[in-house]
C-alpha cells in the first residue's frame, strides 16, 4: 500500500513539474503566436486584394471590408469559407469585389487525399474561380454547364464540392449581411 502511494506521488510530482513548465512556456509564447497568426492572415488578405486596408466585421460570418488605401473606395470583401471535405474541414480564403464576383481564392487548410484532393491547393484549380459569381458556383458533376460552372478535380469531386459550396454559401450570407446593413455602395 505504501509503495503504491509512493509511486502515485512520484508520478504526480513529474506531472506537476511538466504542467507548470508548459503553463509557463504557454504564457510566454501565446501572445507572440497570436500576433504572428494575425499578421499572416493580414498578409494573405493583402495578397488577394492589393493596396487595400481592411476593416473586420463580425456578423453571421466574420468578413473583412477592403477599401482602397488612398481613395477609400470600396474594393471588395474577404472571408474564409469552411466546409467538410473528404477527410476533414477544407478552409478556403476568398476575395470578392463589390458586386460579389470572386476576384481570387486560396485553399488555406485541407487534409484531403494526397495526389487527388490536394490538387485543390494548386493555382490552376484556384484560377477557375476568378470572375465567377454565386450563381456560377456549381460543380459540373452537379449539373453545371461550362463555362458557368466549376470543373471537378479528377478523383476529388467531394473536395471540389466542399470548396465550391462553401464559397457559394458564404457569398450568399455575405450578400444578405451587406444588403441588410445597407452597406452595398
Amino acid at each position, binding site marked *: 500500500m505504501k509503495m503504491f502511494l*509512493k*509511486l502515485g506521488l*512520484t*508520478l504526480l510530482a*513529474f*506531472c506537476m513539474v*511538466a*504542467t507548470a*513548465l*508548459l503553463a509557463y*512556456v*504557454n504564457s*510566454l*509564447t*501565446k501572445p*507572440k*503566436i497570436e500576433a*504572428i497568426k494575425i499578421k499572416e492572415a493580414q498578409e494573405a488578405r493583402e495578397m488577394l486584394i492589393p493596396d487595400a486596408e481592411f476593416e473586420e466585421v463580425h456578423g453571421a460570418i466574420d468578413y473583412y471590408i477592403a477599401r482602397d488605401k488612398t481613395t477609400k473606395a470600396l474594393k471588395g470583401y474577404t472571408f474564409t469559407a469552411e466546409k467538410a471535405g473528404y477527410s476533414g474541414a477544407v478552409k478556403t480564403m476568398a476575395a470578392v469585389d463589390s458586386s460579389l464576383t470572386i476576384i481570387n481564392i486560396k485553399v488555406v487548410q485541407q487534409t484531403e*487525399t*494526397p*495526389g*487527388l484532393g490536394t490538387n485543390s491547393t494548386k493555382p490552376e484549380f484556384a484560377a477557375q474561380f476568378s470572375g465567377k459569381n454565386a450563381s456560377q458556383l456549381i460543380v459540373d458533376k452537379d449539373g453545371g454547364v461550362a463555362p458557368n460552372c466549376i470543373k471537378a478535380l479528377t*478523383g476529388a469531386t467531394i473536395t471540389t464540392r466542399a470548396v465550391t459550396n462553401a464559397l457559394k454559401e458564404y457569398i450568399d450570407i455575405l450578400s444578405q449581411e451587406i444588403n441588410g446593413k445597407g452597406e452595398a455602395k
Partner: protein
Amino acid sequence: MSFISELTKGIIKENPIFVIVLGMCPTLATSTSVSNALGMGMAATFVLVCSNIFISLIKNVTPDKIRIPVYVVVIAAFVSIVDMSMAAYLPALHKSLGLFIPLIVVNCIILGRAEAFANKNNVINSIADGIGMGLGFTLALTVVATIREVLGNGTWLNIKVMPSTYDPMLITLLAPGAFITLGFLMALMNMIKEKK
C-alpha cells in the same frame, strides 16, 4: 559500445524503420513527398536527441514500475514546449516543420529509444543514439518518399523528373502504396544482410 558505433548503428544495422519497424504511422503519413520526409526526419531527430538526454538524466530518480507513464509525460511536455517556442520565435521554421510536431508525440521511435536505450545508458551515448536513430529514420523516410513521389507524382523534391508522357501511379501516394514500397525495401534490406 563507443560513441561512434552508437552513432552509426541506427543508420543501417538497427535502422528504426527497416529493421526495428518502429514509427510506422508517421512513416506512412509523411513519406508522400521528399520535402515532407526531410521535414519529419529533422523534427523527429531533434526531439529524439533532446528526449534521450532528458530521460538519461532522470533515469536514477525514475521508479522502475512507473517509468513508461513518466516517459510519456516527459516526451509529451517536451514536444509541446518545442512546438510552442518554435511557433513563437521561429515562425518560418514552424511553418515547414510545425505540421509534423504533433505527429512526433505518437512516434513510438522516441518512446522506444527512451525505453530501450536512454534509461540504461549515460548522456553522451544517449545523444549518439538519438542522432544515429534520427538520421536512420530520416534516411529511410527519404528513400521511401523518393520512390513514392517519383512514381506517384513524377517529381522529386517538387522538381519534375519524369517525362511529361508519364502517367503517375496514384496508388503509391496512398497508404497501400506505402506498405507495398516498404515491403519491397525491407525485402531488399534482408537480402543484402543475408548475403553478408
